[in-house]
């Protein structure tokens, strides 16, 4: 079975492609901000695993890195951290 995929000669298709920031820079949504005490971090990866925005990276050498451009400040990372290395602080803008 063969298929030919040829774009239409008329109109736009209702198609979307993967993109970062589909809802904009979601960091603007934040009212509280996660701050990491790297000295406490045990590299357990819980924050990275659960971060719903996928903006946390746990680097074996340097510890937790957060992309604040997109972090929505939900606080899940702070709650799942078993050693309280992450605290939520008032966002100052």
């Amino acid at each position, binding site marked *: 079975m063969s*298929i030919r995929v040829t774009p239409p000669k008329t109109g736009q298709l209702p198609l979307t492609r993967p993109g*970062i920031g589909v809802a904009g*820079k979601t960091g603007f949504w934040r009212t509280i901000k996660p701050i990491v005490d790297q000295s406490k971090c*045990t590299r357990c990866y819980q924050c990275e695993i659960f971060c*719903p925005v996928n903006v946390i990276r746990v680097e074996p050498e340097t510890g937790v890195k957060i992309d604040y451009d997109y972090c929505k400040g939900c606080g899940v990372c702070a709650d799942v951290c078993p050693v309280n290395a992450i605290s939520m602080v008032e966002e100052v803008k």
Partner: protein
Amino acid sequence: MGNDQEVIYVSTGRPKPPIPYNMRDIVLPGDAACPGCPIPMAWKVLSAVFGEKMILVIPACCSSVVVGTYPFHSLKTSIIHVPFASAAAVASGVAEALERRGILDVQVVAWAGDGGTADIGMASLSGAAERNNNILYIMYDNEAYMNTGIQRSSSTPLGAWTTTTPIKGKTEPKKDVAKIMIAHGVPYVATASIGYPHDFYNKLQKAKGIRGFKFIHLHAPCPIGWRFDPRYTVRMAKLAVETGLWILYEYHDGKLTISSPSRAYMDPSKRKPIEEYIKLQGRYRNITEELLSEIRRQMDANWEWIKKHM
């Protein structure tokens, strides 16, 4: 964000092995989910198992909004948005077409909420299950119609407030869709929780290796609809398991097995009091003692059922 970069994890003596971890790949930052939403958490686990090699078939639900607005979407994978009642049927069609074209390394995933599964999508779900179409159906269960603003579904638990059960709370127990699917005799049924990604991951891996119809009932607390602080999404999911209210198990080859996170709670004395779970949620703020005992009674009955069928 370096969503394209490949990261190799080096063991640093962590207590638990991490998820093998393409978890970083598919979910792109900046989606339209509410803060603390469990949906992208679950997608990260799917990502770890299937990578780009999945097609999500999504009916009307929060997820159809979470992935964002034309001309982009927030997942580095394929999605077919479909009418509310049709997820399992569309997925069946996609699976048949792929098989016919010899595409065998792509998993078709019907990804629907509790409304799209337990209510409006029930007939098409039952049809696809009975036909044993080669799809993975995941019901992410946030226990109400959250996308339209917290209306009662048949999967809303007893006593929970919603905008359509505004004063008395829901007066009927939660519909147990996993048991309905077991009754279909499909190859694989499991319950899972966003609080236990390793367990969810293992179940997805198992489902990946099974031909035919697979169903996973995924418990997914919603901070907005359940009225709790978004930071507690994972805690809430775990509490549901730790109190024994949500039981993780698998049904495979006609056998029912309790999954490891729930195993300890077969012993009622190990369970946390259900109040610990319920008191954290605004949707239960008017719960009565009578209802609490009824919830306990139903939970015990559920445990009994599972023990009997193990």
